[in-house]
């Protein structure tokens, strides 16, 4: 495999949220626990997992929209956060390079601002134009890129449909010409017919501008379609990471296997002959996550070691990583 440039590297990233638990006690929601991953320049890394497994938190912490609890973030060779070396650079210049598209398009646009103001504000902050004419031209160009009319810039967000609102959100993210965009479930609030339009648009924009995506979704079939590589999360930790095709066809982590066996196949013959693996029990609370491997409470193969030791992400095939003690011992 040729050496590709890693645009973003995340090491041991943790994000804990404090929660109140009665008098004097402080507890933490361990939303992201020691996550390691990296993204090659120009690729799309898909991130899947159940609701509440920390995908969104990981996405937001990656671009420091949430301040990490600890860990290390390196963007384009520059460390932008390092809890050990006490590095936390000012984010303003990086807000130009890293952007995010939010899940709920209607809530993520300020209802008091026109579309032009929403898109233009990003331009203002980073001083990306000279003169009013250039600013207006730039806004129109952005709206055009995402398939909206230039007259739309004087309207307010509530006058648009969900799909159009998400296009505004994308135009807003593109305004600063970022290298990297976190797509935080950008299509899950949209109708199925609109979903494909937005996905195709994101793919076109990527090809055109050489963008890098972290694409978060809970629908693995969408992620499989758009991503070069896929990461699977369970209860705040990354359990498997690999090339899309490889991961979907030859999953090695027990959780990924069950997750994939739940994806419906549009072929009744295959569906009938397929063995579905069902997990027992509920997903544990991230406030008091299980010790050791977080999956051990539901893993059919769990051993004593799994209960005590947190498994690290290790490479088991070319570019195929997983965090499981059983694989170290030669597989399941």
């Amino acid at each position, binding site marked *: 495999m040729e050496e590709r440039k890693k645009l973003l590297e995340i090491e041991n990233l943790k994000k804990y949220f404090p929660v109140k638990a009665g008098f004097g006690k402080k507890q933490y929601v361990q939303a992201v626990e020691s996550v390691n991953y990296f993204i090659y320049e120009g690729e799309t890394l898909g991130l899947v997992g159940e609701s509440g497994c920390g995908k969104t938190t990981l996405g937001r912490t990656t671009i420091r929209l949430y301040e990490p609890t600890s860990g290390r973030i390196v963007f384009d060779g520059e460390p932008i956060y390092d809890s050990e070396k006490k590095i936390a650079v000012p984010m303003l210049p990086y807000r130009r390079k890293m952007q995010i598209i939010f899940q709920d398009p209607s809530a993520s*646009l300020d209802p008091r601002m026109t579309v032009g103001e929403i898109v233009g504000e990003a331009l203002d902050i980073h001083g990306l134009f000279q003169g009013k004419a250039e600013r207006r031209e730039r806004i129109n160009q952005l709206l055009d890129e995402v398939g909206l009319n230039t007259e739309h810039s004087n309207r*307010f967000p509530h006058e648009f449909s969900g799909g159009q609102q998400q296009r505004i*959100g994308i135009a807003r993210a593109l305004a*600063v010409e970022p290298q990297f965009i976190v797509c935080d479930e950008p299509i899950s609030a949209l109708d199925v017919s609109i979903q494909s339009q937005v996905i195709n648009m994101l793919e076109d924009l990527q090809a055109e501008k050489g963008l890098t995506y972290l694409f978060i979704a809970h629908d693995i079939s969408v992620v499989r379609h758009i991503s070069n590589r896929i990461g699977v999360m369970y209860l705040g930790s990354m359990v498997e990471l690999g090339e899309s095709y490889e991961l979907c066809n030859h999953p090695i982590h027990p959780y990924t296997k069950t997750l994939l066996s739940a994806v419906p196949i549009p072929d009744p013959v295959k569906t009938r002959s397929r063995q579905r693996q069902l997990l027992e029990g509920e997903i544990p609370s991230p406030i008091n996550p299980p010790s050791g491997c977080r999956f051990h409470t539901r893993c059919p193969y769990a051993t004593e070691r799994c209960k005590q030791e947190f498994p690290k992400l290790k490479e088991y095939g070319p570019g195929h990583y997983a965090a499981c003690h059983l694989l170290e011992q030669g597989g399941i």
Partner: protein
Amino acid sequence: MVTYTLKRLGAALLTLLIIMAITFFLMNAIPGSPFLTEKSTPQQIALANAKYGLDKPLIIQLKNYVVNYLKGDLGTSLKMQEGTPVRDIIFHQGKFVLSIKLGLISLAVAVIIGIPLGCIAAYNRGTWLDGFLRVMTTVGVAIPGFVLATLLLASLAVKLHVLPTNSGQLTDFKSYIMPILSMSFYYVCYVAKLTRTSMLDAINQDYIRTARAKGVKTKMIVLKHALRNSLIPVITYLGPVTAGIITGSFVVESTFQIPGLGKYYVQCVMSRDYPVIMATTVVLSALVIFMNLVVDIAYKIVDPRITLTNKED
């Protein structure tokens, strides 16, 4: 917008008419007469009643009021300043202006201090500052204006001699402090509370996160995105308050002996000066109605999502 305003003005006139009717029957329901004194004989009272048309059936009296009001004639005072046109009493003796002035200053204080206090509390949520402000505002909305007025008079003026006791004269800046403070403190606290709550609500919205992702500075996020989105409840509250602060000032006016409309109004009710009661009520009601209209139009300016008409686009 124009048709909407015209419609609202029409509705306002109707409301005023209803208010006039209610006021008229209420004040006639109170026993007593403006001409009833220890010395007056029944003949004198009957004579006076006939002179001012009070002997006619109630419904005719009401009709006369309405017709005269439509002509712009508010009648003359029966008792307080016998023979003086009511219009002069209200508008030309400085009473109305004085009350409005006090009210507007108090309102300005409520907005200028209340909104920033609310922002500060929301921004520093959970800290000692927030806790202090929360206690202060809770106490503030719990203390009635006349208690505060009395306490201020007793402490600052009588004991400490920091402020003049004749604050009712409103001669210099110092004399304004206590009346304004006792009138506006409640509203400062209430506005601060409202702002804090709606601000906290706004801060947790997704678009605040969007602004942060754009790189907007925290200060600007609070001022530009959060504040603008959290002003609706405050504006809703300010409309009725504007009228209330002006009309409801009579307690404070009485405490500090300020010769304003509020104090005069109370005296008129006491002495059954019907035309003055009626005129004052109508003028103050008109003020309330007008402020509500202003608020509804202000909504539209603050929140583009609100449409004033039912018309579908």
